[in-house]
Every structure is written in C-alpha cells, then in structure tokens.
C-alpha cells in the first residue's frame, strides 16, 4: 500500500513539475491530466472510490477537455517565448517566496496537534455513506452549490456572447 502511494505521489509530483515548466500550453494540459489521474489513484488508496470516479469525470473528462478545447480554438501552436532577462530577478524571488511558504506550512503542520472533529466507523467511503451525509448534514451547502453553478453558467454565457443588445 505504501509503495503504491509513493509511486502515485512521485507521478503526481513529476507531472505537476512538468505542468509548470513546459513551454507549450497543450503539453502542460496533458501533464496536468496525468497529475489528476495519479491523484485519483491516491483517492482509491484512501478508499474514496466515489470521489476518485468523480475526479476523473469532472477533472479529466470535463475541465481538462475545456482547457484543450480553448487551446485549440485559439490555435496556440507557438510555445511561450523565453522570458526576458530583466524579469529573471522577480521570477527567482517568486519561486523563493512560494517554496518558503510551502516550508512554513509544512513546519506549521509538524507543530500542529490535529484533533478530528468527528470520527466514524471504518469501511466508509462508498457511495451510500457519501450520499447520506451529503443529503443530511451538508444539505444546505449542497443546495448553495447549485446556485453557484447557475451563476457560473450565466456568467459564461454572457461573457462569450460577442455583443449584448
């Protein structure tokens, strides 16, 4: 189980790094898909098979397809031009900042005492227990997400209309 986790984690990290350091947007998108699959595999290990299936349907099947679609629609065939030397300093600063923040978070987590809000019986993670919780304790947030999605749909439609009358 551990080794499987490390293999998947390594895949996720390598793919994630390639997303950041590829010059071509399409390649980045394809590596991001690999990353999502590795993460879905980790969800399976964590006995969250429903979330793993949703991860593949939503991320790999819908979100990344939209990304690829936009890349093709805008016909972005040229890779990004190499960065100008003048921006090098700010870029090094940015990387340092991000890595430092990461280490700070890691350090904070090491210090933290984590107390679970609630613990359940083992063997959870199947669709029934997710559904039960979703439609009892989390009913209101669930309903609110539908409003959020509606807002997003309306926003996307208005933005993509070329001219509003």
């Amino acid at each position: 189980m551990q080794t499987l986790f490390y293999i998947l984690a390594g895949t996720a990290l390598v793919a994630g790094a390639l997303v950041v350091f590829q010059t071509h947007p399409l390649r980045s998108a394809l590596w991001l898909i690999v990353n999502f699959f590795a993460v879905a595999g980790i969800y399976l290990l964590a006995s969250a098979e429903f979330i793993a299936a949703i991860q593949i349907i939503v991320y790999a099947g819908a979100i990344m397809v939209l990304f690829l679609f936009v890349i093709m629609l805008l016909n972005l065939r040229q890779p990004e031009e190499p960065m100008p030397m003048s921006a090098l300093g700010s870029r090094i600063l940015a990387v340092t900042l991000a890595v430092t923040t990461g280490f700070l978070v890691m350090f904070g987590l090491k210090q933290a005492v984590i107390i679970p809000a609630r613990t359940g019986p083992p063997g959870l993670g199947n669709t029934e227990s997710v559904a039960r919780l979703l439609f009892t304790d989390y009913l209101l947030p669930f309903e609110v997400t539908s409003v959020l999605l509606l807002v997003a749909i309306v926003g996307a439609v208005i933005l993509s209309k070329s001219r509003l009358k």
Partner: protein
Amino acid sequence: MEFLTQMLGADVARMVVGLIAIIALVSVNALFLIWMERKVAAHMQLRPGPMEVGWHGAVQTVADAVKLMGKELITPTDVDRPVYHLAPIVIFLPVLLSFLVIPFSQTLIIRDMNVGVLLILAFASLTVLAILMAGWASNNKYSVLGAIRSVAQTVAYEIPLLITLMSPILMVGSFSLADIVAAQERYWFVLTQPLAFILYIVCATAETNRAPFDLPEAESELVAGFHTEYSGMKFGLFFLAEYTNMFIVSALATIFFLGGWRGPFLPGIFWFLIKVYAIIFLLMWFRWTFPRVRFDQLITFAWKILIPLAFANLLITALIMKLR
C-alpha cells in the same frame, strides 16, 4: 484501501483471465461488427456487399486486418510526435478497461463495483481527450476541425446521457451494474422508462460519433476528421476503439433498459449478446435512415430538447418514487 485489497487481493487470477478474454472479445467483436456493418449497409441499398472471401464474405474483415497490419506506418513530417503516437493508445485503453464491470451473465463478470456505472462513464469521457490529442497533433486543418466538432458534440451529449441514466439508477438505488440487472427481475426498465430509453439511444449514437451525428468524421466535408493523418495499424486502433465503443454503449443500454442477461431457456450470456447486437443493428439502421444533421442543429438539439427532456424525466421519476 479495503477497496483496493479487494480488487488486487483474492482474484488477481480472475482479473488476468478476464483481461485476456476481453482482448479476445474486443478483436472478434470488431471483426464481426465491421462485416455486419458492411452487410447491413449493402442490404439496405439492395446490393449483396462483400461476397468473395469466405461464406458471404465472412472472413473479408480478417483479410482487411492482415492488409492493414502489413501497411507502412507513415508519420507526417510536421506532427507533434509524442502526442501523435500516444493518441491511438489513449483512445483504446479506457475502452478496454470499461469491460471490467460489465456483467455478461449472472456469474460472468470480472469485478462488480459499487461505482460501476460511474467508472464506465468516466472512461467514456476519456475518448474525447484522445480525439483532441489526435486532431491537434496531426497538424491538419481537417483533423483540428473534426476534433473541435467532436468536443463540442461530446460535451453537449454527455450531459443528457448522464441525467438520463440517473432515472433508472434512482429506481434501483445503486451504481452497481449487477444490482441494476437484478432489479429488473419482474419487468424491464424499458417499460417503465420508455423516454429514458429513447433519450439514451439518441445520446449514445452521438457519443459514438455515428450517423446521423457523425460530424467529427463527416467524410464528405472533413476527409476523415481527426484520424485523417493516421495510417496502418494506428488507424486500425481508432477503428477498433470505435467499434468497441459501440459494443459498450449497447451493453449499457441492455443492462439499464433490457434486463441485461435475463431471458428464458438460453443461458444468460446468449441473451446478453443477442440484445447487444440487436441494439447495434438499430444503430446501423439509423445510419442508413437519417441524413446527417447540420452542426448548429446538432448542438441546439442537445441543449434545447434532450437536456430539458432528461431533466423532466428525472423529476417525474423522483416524484413517483417519493409518492409510492
């Protein structure tokens, strides 16, 4: 974690044997379907079709496959190489994995999972990724146009497909395909969910890019769409994936609406295959009955007719289930 030990632990042998059986089934099925397609097309047009090789041309496809394998693999100069070579594999692998959860008969199922339907739908949604990769990497305007059409179409038709399947799932209360078949002991769901069945067949036709919704590969305007630049066995893999996809959507229709392997006298597997090939015949019949739709008609049809109907069907099903 238990899920995975369950999957990897006791029945590794079952998985291996199952995968070999699947690969055999996929190849034989594709060979048979191509012959069937040619024969159905021919008889609809009052001509005999392939007659030369074997009985009524039965091994014509084998000869074609051998020819295809012997062909040179041509890689055009300006393609995006890694993506170009990867696309045929990406289109084929998820199709193969979908077979893991399909119950061919009461006992003939490789792995029954409680997210079976979601798994098949997840894998089905990956086909469009491969089409995009192929279309983009080929660096050809017909391929790109075919791929863009394919995405718009698949995204539009995936929504009613998912919502339609939710109605029978609501009646069963399980995502497991074996449970769905088990719930149809007294009557088939096509009787209680006729609208869902029709909607599913329409969406499945669109999802498999078949006529009258075959705009991504419309041969009269786009040469062959996304696989224009592929030759030899790479093209063969696209073809294989397409016919296997047809089998899977028909198998889903059988499981969801026609009672799966249930039937009198004959063993389950026979009934399952009979029903699946009957639906495939229906899909082939469509191809020679309906003219290809225009692209704007295609998208409008999905968003303005299919999705509202699917939602209405789901709502009514939910109401009836609640009142009962």
